């Protein structure tokens, strides 16, 4: 390589960088906007409650002496916090796995099988997203009660409920992504003698991996952060099974206010969903699907 080509390459790189400055500017600007409230919450989670109403959180950055670990210490010192964490895991993992599998079968049927009444049924299924969960609590509690299944307060009760509540969105999202797959792939598989079961497991599922990863992130997040469903189906009946969200909400209300603990608790409880998000990031890589489809 001659000196000229090296120089030309480096000029090209700088010109490219120059063109990309607006891109970096916009991305970083949006990141800063999104971070400001989060940082505010983070800084306040390290401040004593009196300080919060006296001065803004940004002043603390310049006088770090007021920082304290008391809020975190108080949250983590709750006798049932580790039990709550374990319970949250017990609730969230099955309540993520079950609806995704059930939804994947249904989504495949909606996307690739023909049957009478399919469109109407699909509309009804997705329309159920609007049903206010509050209106389902009383009938379901009756069903879970001693006169019904007698499972109120158990993990099974919340697993089943989260599966039911999560399905409309899961089916909707997966049906959309499965429906976009090219017809030829399934047709050539059928010609080669593949059954729908084989097509589903060998083609449809692997090709919708980014959508399944996105769905897993959200289903896990919603179940992990859910207070309402846990409160109704576990709450009073069996405090031993209470997830982290119930432990945290007790912390706040029993102390009247006490929301500085809420800020600390928010960061404690956020860690795991964020880890799930980061772990599933590797399925959001360009070409993971494209490579298998010769379109």
């Amino acid at each position: 390589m001659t000196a000229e080509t090296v120089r030309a390459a480096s000029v090209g790189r700088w010109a490219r960088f120059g063109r990309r400055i607006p891109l970096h500017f916009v991305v970083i600007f949006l990141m800063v906007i999104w971070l400001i409230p989060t940082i505010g919450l983070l800084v306040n989670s390290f401040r004593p409650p009196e300080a919060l109403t006296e001065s803004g959180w940004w002043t603390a950055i310049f006088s770090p002496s007021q920082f304290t670990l008391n809020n975190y210490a108080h949250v983590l010192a709750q006798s049932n916090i580790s039990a709550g964490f374990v319970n949250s895991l017990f609730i969230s993992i099955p309540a993520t796995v079950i609806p995704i599998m059930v939804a994947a079968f249904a989504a495949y049927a909606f996307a690739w099988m023909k049957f009478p009444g399919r469109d109407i049924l699909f509309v009804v299924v997705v329309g159920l997203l609007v049903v206010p969960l509050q209106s389902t609590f009383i009938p379901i509690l009756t069903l879970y009660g001693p006169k019904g299944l007698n499972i109120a307060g158990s993990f099974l009760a919340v697993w089943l409920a989260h599966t039911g509540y999560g399905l409309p969105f899961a089916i909707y999202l997966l049906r959309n992504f499965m429906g976009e797959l090219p017809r030829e792939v399934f047709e050539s598989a059928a010609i080669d003698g593949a059954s729908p079961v084989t097509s589903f497991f060998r083609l449809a599922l692997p090709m919708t991996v980014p959508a399944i990863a996105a769905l897993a992130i959200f289903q896990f997040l919603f179940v992990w952060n859910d207070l309402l469903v846990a409160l109704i189906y576990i709450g009073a009946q069996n405090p031993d099974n209470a997830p982290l969200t119930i432990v945290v909400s007790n912390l706040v209300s029993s102390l009247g206010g006490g929301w500085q603990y809420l800020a600390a608790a928010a960061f404690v409880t956020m860690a795991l969903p964020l880890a799930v998000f980061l772990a599933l990031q590797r399925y959001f890589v360009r070409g993971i699907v494209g490579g298998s489809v010769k379109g």
Partner: protein
Amino acid sequence: MDPRLGTAVIVVLGVPAVLIGYIWLTERVLGLLGQRARPRLRPWLWLAPALAFLIVFLVYPSIGSLIRSFQNAAGTKFVGLDNYAWFFNDDATLIALKNSLIWLVVLTGLTVGLGLLIAVLVDRVRYETVAKSVIFVPLAISMVAASVIWTFMYDYQVPPNPQVGTLNAALGSAGIAPIAWVQISDFSLNSILLVIVMAWMWTGFCMVILSASLKGINPELLEAARVDGATERQVFRRITLPLMAPTIAVVMTTMVITALKAFDVVYVMTSGHFDTQVVAFQLIQELYNFGNPGRASAIGIVLLLAIVPVMAFNVRRFRAQEAIR
């Protein structure tokens, strides 16, 4: 060791095994049937587990709500369409309806617009994961904690007290008088300020799904267009955007429904005061505060009916998708 651990392991491994076994078994059963019965029966067997869950947890309670919506507060007698007549004539409800409409338009516009912008932009930078995590974090913060931090963003102190709210402090440093955010009663601005809180949380949701769709586009397709001389803008407008359109529609539909159901932010930040009431929070109040499940059920049914046009649009879209794939 915790005995529940065993149960959890059995569930996490066992349930998928049972479901896969179920599908495998249905195929065996279908194998015994004739060629013509098979494709007719198969979809129903694949749908059965999902439909069972949906019927128990959502359809059956909704039928209860429908019946309840025609009854009085105590549930002792049928009052015909009274609850619906109340909903469409009461002044407070009409304000809630107007605000819900604002939520629907502004929240959907902001989250889908910004989510798409961010998904497309971060796809082009090396620090994509960091940028996406930053946008995703608010969704992982609980709704209550998020509302608390935004209470501090919007906080207003009567001068000359020092402003501890972020926005007013920022205005102060620019020499502008503080504004009583969320308590301004003009132009429904308060509702929009609450929508911003929700948009801050939910943009990450739209971004993740739109990003999944973007990554699903065959790179060879884009490369071919570039080789043929298309500019980046043309590649985006003519190829990327049309290929993402179905997912954009899914995200928009989901956000419309999220906007209609949103009440937590209103509950924590204003309790519906200052002209910020929304239909979903009114449902909660009728149910828990005013002891009128009849009216609450009527509101729920109105919400269900309100999305019928959105769903009709979805069906048309799916039919079009099937025609071209």
